[in-house]
């Protein structure tokens, strides 16, 4: 039996039920990780590869290279000025037939390594598990993706289930997401092979290992995808636009939290300027979650790349760190049965942050663990 806990959350942090859209940025900044494929001042179209691994989310002109922040690391980025015409060479992409070969083709062509790893060389799964859970507090991406696109997503789950001859198909939703549960129940009726599975709002259920344990199917052959992965796959297969992503901007230092569909590789500060009203003078901006994320060092130059899922803008809090009282709470809570106080087996650490979350001395154990690693 796994023992998971619910995190203490501030019930005053509410999110706008409607998705906001940031689809017309003046510039996008493509991190240069691989060979650049275009010249200065060359025109690019939407979803055209501008480096060997990344495509432009807009059409426009490559105007130069600038150093920006990608996940707190200085990174040279290709700057593309938007012409606001959304020109695309792939204009007439048609819905692709869902076959194993087609899926592999698409994933290879689009460098979708994560999905590729899960699907490669498989032609049968016992269970398909689609998770619409976000573990991190005040992050709502997955549930909003489901809400936004429920019909297509259910149809893809259905097709995957036929393709992989799965016995069970689970769609996992937290039981406190009342709105979406109703939507799901209405739409899922036509897919009797998909089970809507409600789980408690417990931390770590977004992680494959823990949800499989919870469902007691850990030893079976499972295909686990989160709604975001499925949405990406769905967009490729249905020939839809993949140049945008969903991020949540939430926190107690802003007037209203929002889930925003934005072009990829835009500047965070541009989104904040347009949508977010900061109400506190002293605040921290954190990317990718309050439990496992990091504080942003340079908000003005921070780029929303594909790996950024959330931004939390929180009132500045200072915790007075005191000497360890050896209470053992950090050991007791660790879901991987590690001992954050010594250096053994720390390579198994999943960076969940629970050890720091429970420490009464406010010791940043997660940081120590990472350093030890």
């Amino acid at each position: 039996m796994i023992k998971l806990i619910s995190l203490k959350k501030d019930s005053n942090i509410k999110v706008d039920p409607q998705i906001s859209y940031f689809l017309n940025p003046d510039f996008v900044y493509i991190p240069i990780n691989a060979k650049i494929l275009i010249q200065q001042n060359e025109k690019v179209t939407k979803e055209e590869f501008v480096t060997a691994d990344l495509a432009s989310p807009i059409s426009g002109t490559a105007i130069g290279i600038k150093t920006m922040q990608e996940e707190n690391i200085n990174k040279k980025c290709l700057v593309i000025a938007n012409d606001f015409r959304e020109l695309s060479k792939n204009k007439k992409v048609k819905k692709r037939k869902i076959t194993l070969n087609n899926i592999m083709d698409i994933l290879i062509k689009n460098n979708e390594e994560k999905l590729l790893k899960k699907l490669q060389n498989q032609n049968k799964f016992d269970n398909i598990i689609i998770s619409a859970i976000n573990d991190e507090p005040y992050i709502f991406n997955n549930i909003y993706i489901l809400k936004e696109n429920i019909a297509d997503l259910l149809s893809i789950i259905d097709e995957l289930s036929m393709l992989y001859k799965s016995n069970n198909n689970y769609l996992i939703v937290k039981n406190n997401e009342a709105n979406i549960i109703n939507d799901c129940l209405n739409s899922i009726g036509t897919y009797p092979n998909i089970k809507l599975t409600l789980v408690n709002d417990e931390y770590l259920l977004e992680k494959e290992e823990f949800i499989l344990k919870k469902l007691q199917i850990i030893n079976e052959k499972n295909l686990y995808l989160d709604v975001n992965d499925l949405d990406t796959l769905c967009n490729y297969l249905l020939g839809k636009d993949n140049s945008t992503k969903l991020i949540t901007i939430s926190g107690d230092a802003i007037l209203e939290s929002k889930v925003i569909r934005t072009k990829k590789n835009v500047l965070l500060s541009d989104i904040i300027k347009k949508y977010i009203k900061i109400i506190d003078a002293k605040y921290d901006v954190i990317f990718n979650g309050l439990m496992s994320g990091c504080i942003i060092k340079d908000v003005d130059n921070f780029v929303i790349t594909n790996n950024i899922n959330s931004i939390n803008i929180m009132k500045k809090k200072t915790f007075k760190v005191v000497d360890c009282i050896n209470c053992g709470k950090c050991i007791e809570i660790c879901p991987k049965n590690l001992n954050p106080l010594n250096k053994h087996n720390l390579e198994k650490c999943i960076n969940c942050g629970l050890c720091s979350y429970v420490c009464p001395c406010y010791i940043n154990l997660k940081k120590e663990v990472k350093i030890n690693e």
Partner: protein
Amino acid sequence: MNRVYLHNNESIKKIVIKYLIGLLPLVLYGFYKNGILLYRDDLVSFVDMFNVFYLLIISILLLLITNFFFKKKIFENMSLVLVCTVPLFMPPSINLLVYAISLFLSLIIINVLPKKINYNKIAFVILFILIIINMFEPLSYLNSAEKLNIYALNFFDLICGRTIGGIASSNILLGIIVLFYYAFFNNYKKVIAFSSLLAFVIIMILINNFDINELIASNAILALILIAPDTISTPAKFQSMVIYGLILGILTGLLTSFISFNIGVFIAILICSFTTPILVKLTEKW
């Protein structure tokens, strides 16, 4: 910076307060047994009736003074727990001046001793004070009534606190209630308390030929509940806590039976706490 921004709101201050709440019924019972009852029978004066409270007040004042000298804050460590636990285990007829001086000295010692030395500070302070008291007069845990042996008590009376013991550490029934209260609140090493109690009870029953009176008539049970699971000086891992508790229980039984009835438990706790680093090392890879 890689930091967790969310916290479950547990802090040392909250842990200390919850701990002190647990001590309250014991203090009140101590006041009843060694204050009200003795005053009723004209065995102590009105002023002396409140001895247990004087001890607590002296302890807290001395902590504030030493904290001031050593630039420490009251809720940044567990020292308030220490100074509020120590008086409970003092002999009922303790001389307040001797208590104050010896506590003050022991607080200075624990502040200057290197942090690296692992020992149970509560047990150390209690032993230190008892040794100093013993220099002035032979150590006795009898109160004025017990010295005169004027009460006829049955087993139920004894288990409800009328047994011989510290000024507020004689009520085993209350102690067990407090144990369960602590076990349900977060930061109490209940594994050590339960395993040491289990080992102690078994060893005492075996040594004393199933005589339950021997088991309850010492400071041991309350000390195993209140002092043994001291968070700082004990191991933190489940397996090491079980081993630690079992060894401690056995040692307490042996020392209480063969060395010193009243202070055996404190010696056992102090000895065991010295072994914690070795135990932690041995069980590191488990």
